[in-house]
């Protein structure tokens, strides 16, 4: 028991703790420069500072916890009489770790605060107390002095962090480490989402910040009780699972059958490299857009999405936005074209015979393409939302707009892909097909009015009523045009085009 605890604690407090010290010191030092708070108020402010906690301390905590999770070693397990004893030792080690983790930050803040005047009350003097005032009023409602409040907040944080790390310990016991990391990231993402979107926080148990940050429980009466009870329930459930079901492993009954040509091809397309390329393109353009948008007065997330999906208008030529449209719409197309070229190269008799029917080949490609384009659109919207949240653009009431945008973008890219695929079926030349599809983007440059209805690049907001007013096309018309084009293409490929693939 003792040895396990000691070992775990030793593993936690290694050189990596310097990173925490450094971040903590940097942040505290920056705040200390301009503060007009008293010593006790400063400590309370630092230990409850919202941005520091959510964007530095909790990620560092998750990282450290993840690093500390390790597979149970046989010779350690064998020395514990029961599994629950072993687990308890680990859990208590985490408690000690968390005491140290929070304690270090406390000490840093207390050292940094030296030299400030002593005043153990909630009264604020002079200076600009943006945000602090509200916080202090909340704390003053529950505690008599800042010192008292900071001690309780720190203790609460220790308990909360321990409970959260026990959850991860439990998950790690029953699941793979990879899954745990996914769960961690999801929980963190949920937490930030819950902080940004008011009203989402109505189910406090799902958001871990309620367990860690005391004043997040002040927003509604009785929330603190709820948090405490749910922590207790988590501990009880953990205890039961560890005591009686520790030897069980969850079995996924719905095993996904990764067989068939579709999955065989999916491995070519859904590679880490391809996703990384898409993400890099999206991040680069999004960052550029968000920098541009944030210069505006009262920037909203809607403005960002409008400029991200701006595309290129008709009857005009703007080099940068045209190229940007080519990159944004052509990025997934390019990867799809590379994919089609690869599988076209590899096409051999054995594969053809095993497929039984030519139609299956086309169908597999179309399925994968649809999945890939969906992934792209989801990434595009997702990256946008994350970036808007990071730079604090208000993101309310955009749901319908975003759904419209993503549907239109999906149909647009799908249309271009099907056009590409039809051309490919016709001549079996990927380069030519891709270049023709790219060239079809240039049709919107022609000096004629009807090109506004041309399906390529119809997802451009520059052609929409939102920008052009009466002359533009509405979302409904756009979806109608693109949808019918896609249906026609799909029907052609499904009933006729497929016969021509594979040298028939």
């Amino acid at each position, binding site marked *: 028991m003792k040895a396990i605890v000691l070992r775990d604690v030793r593993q936690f407090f290694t050189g990596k703790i310097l990173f925490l010290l450094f971040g903590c010191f940097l942040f505290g030092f920056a705040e200390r420069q301009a503060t007009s708070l008293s010593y006790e108020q400063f400590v309370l402010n630092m230990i409850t500072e919202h941005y520091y906690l959510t964007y530095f301390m909790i990620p560092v905590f998750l990282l450290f916890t993840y690093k500390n999770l390790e597979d149970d070693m046989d010779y350690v397990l064998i020395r514990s009489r029961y599994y629950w004893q072993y687990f308890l030792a680990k859990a208590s080690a985490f408690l000690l770790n968390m005491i140290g983790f929070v304690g270090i930050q406390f000490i840093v803040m207390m050292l940094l605060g030296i030299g400030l005047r002593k005043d153990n009350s909630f009264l604020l003097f002079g200076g600009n107390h943006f945000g602090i005032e509200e916080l202090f009023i909340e704390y003053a409602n529950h505690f008599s002095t800042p010192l008292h409040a900071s001690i309780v907040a720190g203790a609460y944080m220790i308990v909360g962090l321990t409970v959260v790390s026990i959850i991860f310990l439990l998950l790690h016991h029953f699941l793979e480490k990879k899954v745990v990391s996914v769960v961690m990231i999801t929980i963190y993402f949920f937490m930030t989402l819950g902080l940004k979107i008011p009203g989402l926080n109505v189910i406090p148990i799902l958001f871990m910040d309620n367990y860690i940050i005391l004043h997040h429980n002040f927003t509604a009466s009785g929330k603190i009780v709820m948090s405490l009870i749910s922590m207790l329930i988590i501990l009880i459930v953990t205890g039961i699972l560890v005591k009686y079901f520790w030897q069980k492993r969850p079995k996924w009954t719905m095993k996904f059958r990764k067989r068939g040509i579709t999955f065989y091809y999916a491995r070519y397309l859904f590679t880490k490299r391809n996703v990384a390329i898409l993400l890099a393109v999206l991040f*680069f353009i999004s960052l*550029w857009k968000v920098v541009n948008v944030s210069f505006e007065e009262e920037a909203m997330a809607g403005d960002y999405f409008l400029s991200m999906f701006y595309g290129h208008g008709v009857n005009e030529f703007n*080099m*940068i936005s045209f*190229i*940007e449209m*080519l*990159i944004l719409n052509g990025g997934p197309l*390019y990867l799809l*074209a*590379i994919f089609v*070229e*690869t599988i076209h*190269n590899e096409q051999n008799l054995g594969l053809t015979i095993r497929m039984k029917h030519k139609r299956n080949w086309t169908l597999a490609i179309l399925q994968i393409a649809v999945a890939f384009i969906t992934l792209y659109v989801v990434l595009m919207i997702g990256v946008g939302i994350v970036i808007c949240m990071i730079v604090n653009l208000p993101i309310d009431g955009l749901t319908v707009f975003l759904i419209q945008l993503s549907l239109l973008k999906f149909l647009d890219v799908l249309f271009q892909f099907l056009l590409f695929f039809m051309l490919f079926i016709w001549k079996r030349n*990927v*380069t030519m097909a*891709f*270049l023709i599809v790219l060239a079809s983007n240039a049709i919107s440059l022609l000096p004629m009015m009807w090109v506004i209805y041309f399906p390529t690049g119809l997802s451009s907001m520059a052609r929409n009523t939102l920008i052009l007013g009466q002359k533009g096309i509405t979302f409904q018309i756009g979806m109608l045009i693109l949808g019918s084009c896609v249906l026609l293409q799909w029907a052609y490929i499904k009933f006729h085009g497929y016969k021509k693939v594979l040298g028939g």
Partner: protein
Amino acid sequence: MKMLMLLEWRKVKWPVLIMLLIATAASMILSSTLYKGYSLEYDLEAWEVGMEYLNFLFPLIAALPVGWLMYYERKNNFLIYTLPRVSKRKYLLSKWIVLALSAGVTMFIIMFAGVLTALYLKPEIIPELVLVDPITGELISQILSHHFLGELFANHPLVYGLLLSVWRGLLAALVATFAFVLSLYIENLFIILTGPFIYWILENFILSVLGIPQYRLVTAFDPTAVSSSMINGYSFVAGPLLLVLLMIFLVFYFKRIKKMTVYPS
């Protein structure tokens, strides 16, 4: 060596000649028609106006007719049969020379045909001066004061056109070299043929967004793409240099890190 180069030329002859014919015709037609919608001062401006679309497509013109050459020889293992007859270095070198030369000469001819058309074939332009001298109040030439190398452009348009055409030919040779480097290691024809074009688009976009459009490859190719005050000597060096660095990096990456070989092993 001479025989080798002749051999290579025979392989790429038809695609290069077809591209040359089509693009030269396009260049002559564009230079003698598009300018009508503009108010211009000098004949050579008709060439600049006409070349805008070809400029945008220039990596394709350079890479498409020649990029496939190496790909097929690697794919069907033809390369193995050359091994006993000729050294690797010599074979690849002669291939590259033919490739770069044909791309460069093609581009030069396309551009210079446009210059000749604009200067001598189409009817002369009636100059329309729009710029007013703030001191004297007279109409002055916009070209002389604002165009890149305005003096040369106005007084010796043939020399200007010739110089720029030669320079563009060199850049086309560079781009064809890029396609060649790609074809040495990559086994996807589509990437080889469109790689230079995609690079050109991405580089153009990224450098523009970063606020240094004067160092794009586009600017090196067409110095009128940005205002003449931003142009300096580095504008002509930076874009090609970046491409050369990328090529060196790619060769290093494929050869040393990925340990790929040009000849099947």
